[in-house]
């Protein structure tokens, strides 16, 4: 997990608005002037879907968009491949505004640049698992004899060896979603969109799927946009976390940063229930220093979780650890600081909303 500033922006979302209703243009000015979602509904009978979204999605990152049901996550991700047309704003892919694409260019983008994984799998029930996995190539006109090996390769990779001739309804939910992932991978697109891809699965299977995704990502380094309403999932997967509420971005940034410095009561609420020791990492809590402290109890890694440090300390609160990264010291962690970090944060006093509220 390196800092994202050095990476290239793959997708840039700029001042994006989406209003659902009979005449969205007519109320756009009201929304830009700051009308809230509830007021817009009450006064103009329009639904505010997205409100001035600005997000940079970096190449090779997993960007997680999180929020409660109805906060606009699905609407936002569908703007990236224009399954939904924006009311105003831009979405740039490699610097090209996709809002300006004509039908043919848009089709090329959907076929070659972006693939999608759906919450309810959305496999074609009348086609075999193999044909489903090869769907992206089939759509491009590649004959089955040619896409078969590619589709089989990805089916094997997601753990579905030998199931190519089955039909989707013969598989369990978790296996169907593996087909969904294989389908997205077979398209060989640099961007993968996942709308609550694991939300419909049992907790244990969900964990497996998250591990599978991280594993694949290690190898493939795709640009993944992942939607979730589950904070634990978001924290596990995210390089960059975007928190949505009522269609606007409440806060975005590195997940550790958001945990340590939430800037809104909404987020404080959100993170109050999580096991902080399990998700917070040493690098977020340590004191950055090259000085070697007295009474060093041991060495810990920059990316270790606090939970593992607590286990190492066997509950002693007086200890101090040296933090290393690639073998070199980058900081020092006092157990007392660690314990302080475990106290749930109140909204930072000086926190500023990152977007129009």
């Amino acid at each position, binding site marked *: 997990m390196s800092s994202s500033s050095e990476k290239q922006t793959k997708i840039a979302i700029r001042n994006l608005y989406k209003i659902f209703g009979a005449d969205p243009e007519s109320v756009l000015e009201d929304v830009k002037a700051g009308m809230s979602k509830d007021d817009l509904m009450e006064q103009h009978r329009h639904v505010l879907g997205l409100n001035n979204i600005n997000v940079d999605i970096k190449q090779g990152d997993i960007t997680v968009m999180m929020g409660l049901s109805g906060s606009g996550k699905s609407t936002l991700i569908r703007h990236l491949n224009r*399954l939904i047309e924006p009311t105003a704003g831009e979405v740039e892919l490699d610097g090209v505004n996709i809002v300006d694409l004509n039908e043919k260019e*848009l089709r090329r983008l959907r*076929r070659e640049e972006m693939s999608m994984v759906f919450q309810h799998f959305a496999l*074609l029930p009348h086609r075999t698992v193999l044909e489903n996995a090869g*769907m992206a190539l089939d759509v491009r006109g590649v004959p089955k004899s040619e896409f078969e090996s590619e589709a089989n390769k990805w089916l094997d990779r997601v753990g579905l060896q030998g199931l190519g001739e089955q039909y989707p309804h013969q598989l369990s939910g978790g296996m169907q979603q593996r087909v969904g992932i294989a389908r997205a991978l077979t398209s060989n697109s640099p961007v993968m969109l996942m709308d609550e891809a694991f939300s419909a699965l049992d907790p244990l299977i969900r964990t497996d799927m998250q591990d599978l995704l991280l594993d694949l990502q290690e190898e493939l380094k795709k640009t993944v946009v992942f939607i979730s309403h589950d904070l634990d999932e978001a924290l596990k997967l995210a390089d960059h976390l975007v928190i949505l509420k009522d269609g606007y971005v409440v806060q975005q940034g590195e997940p550790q940063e958001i945990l340590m410095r939430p800037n809104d009561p909404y987020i404080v609420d959100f993170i109050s229930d999580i096991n902080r020791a399990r998700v917070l990492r040493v690098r977020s809590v340590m004191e950055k220093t090259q000085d070697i402290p007295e009474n060093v109890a041991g060495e810990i890694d920059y990316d270790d979780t606090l939970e593992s440090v607590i286990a190492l300390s066997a509950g002693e609160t007086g200890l101090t650890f040296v933090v290393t990264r690639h073998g070199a010291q980058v900081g020092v962690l006092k157990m007392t600081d660690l314990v302080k970090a475990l106290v749930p944060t109140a909204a930072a006093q000086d926190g500023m909303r990152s977007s129009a509220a």
Partner: protein
Amino acid sequence: MATYDFVFRALGLEDWCEAGGESSAPMSMDALVSQTTGEEASTSIWELPFPSMDALNQACPAFPQSRNVTLGLENGFLAVKDSMSVVLDPITQPLSWLLEGALYGILTTPWWIIIPLLLAIVWFISKSWKLLAFVALSIGGLAFIDYYSYAMQTLAIIMVCAFLCVLFGVPIGIAMSRSDRMRASTIPVLDMLQTLPPFVYLIPLIFLFSVTEPKLYGIAIILYAIVPVIRLTDLGIRMVDETVIEAANAFGMTKRQKLYGVQIPLALPNIMAGVNQTIMMSLAMVVIASLVSAPGLGVLVLRGINNLELGVGLVSGLGIVLLAVMLDRTTKAALDRINAAQKG
């Protein structure tokens, strides 16, 4: 004096009424009755006639009688009939050829080719030994009692008409599923076709085409039977899971790829249910159509009624039931196989 004289007096239309001239209008029934009995029309409130056209005509001879309405309709129809025939005749002529060809073909081909062919089709569609045995026994039985040629004529007509229903019905259903406007304008027509008693279609058709032409009953059957296949195609395509359609869009399918690769295959169970109903309705109509010279088992039913030949009527009725069961089971078996392939 008539009950509604005052209406015309109040409107100041007496002159117009007089000018209408009593002599030109034929006498209405009431007038005739009152004339022969020599009584004035009663004015008691209990016997107040509804202000119908005939009642008003009595008060004012220039006012049209109700028979003028039916007469006018008839004249109007006869006036456009010739020009309609000029257009409709050539368009529908292929239907006559198809029906004549099918009837000729099925009767001139020897039975030892037709029966095995039918059995092969049933086997190919249903893959069920039980159904195959049932069909073999039924056709064999009908042939044994010398009803073979009638049953085959009925079957030939049904096959031609059901084929044309599917040929036209499925595209119409697809068009309806794609455009709400098209749907809104088609549904009243379908409702009308479905609620009109079949005898009523026959009336204008008899005027348009000559009774000896096969297309007359062909059109009647198609109009009656095409409705379910249209409705169920539309419904089937509209019911296709939206998330699957979204996935098809997200992977960049063209409209055409979506239609042939996703929508039609997923609507197929519904379309097949429509085909099944269409075939059953063709069968019902082909019996009625024997009134207008459709050959087959219906002719025998009609003979049973007209000549009070109880045995002929009952046996041909049984033959129709057997045909119905064969057609129904075979198409349902096809439907089941499609369902099994899609939803274990």
